[in-house]
């Protein structure tokens, strides 16, 4: 075991898969000699060579097309989109092409591609860096969307994502890259995609969260505990498909739930979680399922992040509404 930050765990997962499978290719803008703008690919080109880990021209759509084309030659591409706000440039390659590759060829071809991309607020990035766009991806049949919140989850989920034979969007929250260390096994291990994790057990309320909001939810749970409320925190880990079994099992136990996301209320995936609970566990509910989300504006100018981004206080407030309904 080693103490790792999430970014180190990601590098470790990439190294593991570059070693395990000669078809794995890591490429993107500045991921080679530079080791990535966040050092996620640090040292990989040196260890595996320019043939395996390489830079691309500055064009996201081209990167997406490159990944798709490489799959026809048996490669397992792990491209990087420098910031997920740049997704719009490569939306066709992702949603219009790779997500549909297996279906449109009736299984003749498939796209074992893992797109890594940083996102998330709280670190005062410039425009179009921090936007939470996982909701767009979650609406596209053919993709899986994974968002880890811990170093341990990041490594196991990224190895699973790379080994998956269908396209996976792997979103890395910038604020979590180096915010804390955690024990991470040095050997390889996997965490199944589509499986949530109960990060804290409780009996009065279920908080369903993902990304940076998992940590705000855990903080909120601690405070609520002090006031005598036992709170369960579920980390979705995969936001498409969501782990319905874990969610429903928890809600049937606690009878109350809130869904927490950093994205705007009209975006993200919280509405989908609420709908699934309503469909499947309405008779267990003592109160409506409420959402914690950002205001429905464009992502804030960086100085406005503290007043705009949802935080543990918002979670406590919403939790109390549900607990006291």
């Amino acid at each position, binding site marked *: 075991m080693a103490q790792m930050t999430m970014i180190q765990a990601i590098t470790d997962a990439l190294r593991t898969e570059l070693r395990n499978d000669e078809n794995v290719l890591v490429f993107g803008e500045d991921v080679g000699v530079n080791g990535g703008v966040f050092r996620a690919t640090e040292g990989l080109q040196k260890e595996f060579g320019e*043939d395996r880990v390489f830079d*691309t*021209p500055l*064009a996201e*759509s*081209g990167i*997406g*097309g*490159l*990944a*798709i*084309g*490489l*799959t*026809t*030659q*048996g*490669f397992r591409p792990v491209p990087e989109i420098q910031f997920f706000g740049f997704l719009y440039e490569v939306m*066709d*390659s992702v949603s*219009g*092409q790779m997500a549909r590759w*297996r*279906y*449109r*060829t*009736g*299984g*003749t*071809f*498939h796209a074992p591609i893992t797109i890594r991309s940083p996102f998330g607020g709280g670190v005062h990035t410039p425009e179009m860096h921090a936007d939470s766009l996982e909701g767009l991806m979650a609406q596209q*049949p*053919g993709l*899986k969307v994974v968002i880890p919140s811990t170093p341990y989850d990041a490594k196991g989920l990224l190895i699973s994502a790379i080994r*998956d*034979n*269908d396209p996976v969007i792997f979103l890395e929250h910038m604020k979590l890259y180096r915010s804390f260390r955690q024990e991470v096994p040095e050997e390889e291990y996997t965490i199944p995609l*589509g499986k949530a994790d109960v990060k804290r057990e409780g009996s009065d309320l279920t908080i369903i969260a993902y990304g940076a909001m998992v940590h705000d939810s855990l903080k909120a749970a601690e405070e609520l505990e002090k006031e005598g409320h036992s709170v369960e925190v579920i980390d979705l880990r995969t936001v498409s*498909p969501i*782990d*319905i*079994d874990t969610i429903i099992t928890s809600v049937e136990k606690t009878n109350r739930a809130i869904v927490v996301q950093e994205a705007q209320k009209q975006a993200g995936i919280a509405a989908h979680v609420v709908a699934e609970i309503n469909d499947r566990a309405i008779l267990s509910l003592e109160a409506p399922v409420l959402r914690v989300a950002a205001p429905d504006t464009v992502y804030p100018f960086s100085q406005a992040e503290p007043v705009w981004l949802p935080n543990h206080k918002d979670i406590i407030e919403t939790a109390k509404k549900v607990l006291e309904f």
Partner: protein
Amino acid sequence: MASKTKKTQFDAVKTLENIESQFEMVQILNEKGEIVEDALVPDLSDEQLTELMRRMVYTRILDQRSISLNRQGRLGFYAPTAGQEASQLASQFALEKEDFILPGYRDVPQIIWHGLPLYQAFLFSRGHFVGNQIPEGVNVIPPQIIIGAQYVQAAGVALGMKKRGKKSVAVTYTGDGGSSQGDFYEGINFAGAYGAPAIFIVQNNQFAISTPRDKQTAATTIAQKAIAAGIPGVLVDGMDPLAVYSVVKEARDRAINGGGPTLIETLCYRYGPHTMAGDDPTRYRTSDTDSEWEKKDPLVRFRNYLVNKGIWNEEKENEVIEQAKEDIKVAIKKADETPKQKVTDLISNMYEELPNNLQEQYEIYKEKESK
């Protein structure tokens, strides 16, 4: 502040003219079927020449029958190909089986001649997934509907081939309108930056639906856009099978020997509408232009060339026509006999392992389908 514009030595207009003068059209056969460029005549045997003619005639019949079958409602989406036989088939004729074709939506003939069974091409037209189940060993993808996407993907196929050390190329096609897309530039630029073995073909058939070529760009040729990627660009008479074959063959030879990609503009014409979905070319094209381009018909000039060589005659041509009609009849029947699609089929084709939402929906539709 200077009151007058300072005279400069730099002549930007001259620079442009110099560039344009470098893109003269390669032609080997003129409209009468006479060799006009002896030195460029490709090294093709009589058998190869007649095979190319056979394919062109066959494909002209395929176009006529497809239009007719579409009108009868026995085919769906169809983008006519008449007029582009030299551009489409002579280029494919220069390829080897191991080469990988990324076609646009009008480029069904190339993938048929590369190995896609005809009945599957018809199923593609109708909208059936079996049409896109490419047989093992046939190196093509289904026709690409998103104009330009095939270009960035071709750069990836070609880079993959280079990494595998293969002696093969990725070949992709778009139209004149497609050269305005971002993916067009990104595709040729990526392939150039990686020195990847790709051949990018722009079939300039003069119109993108109703929009004429000169509304796409002020560039006098599309071939010169290769300069932006720093790769060779060639303008070729797209109604001349020998010229198309020669430039593609040259690009292929160069690519497999590490020379990187080439952009080829084939100047051609589509006699029919853009697609069969209600496009009416009389709204934007004159009959004068149509007849001017009919004189340039690739079949007419190639037929004259081969007849003069004594290796083609009416009898041979009729044999091809009859064969094509028979094959088409058989293929349509086979398409008719293909089982209808079920929702469970569509679900099964989404992922290797179905996620929980689709597992659940699979059971629901399986139940519906069993009733």
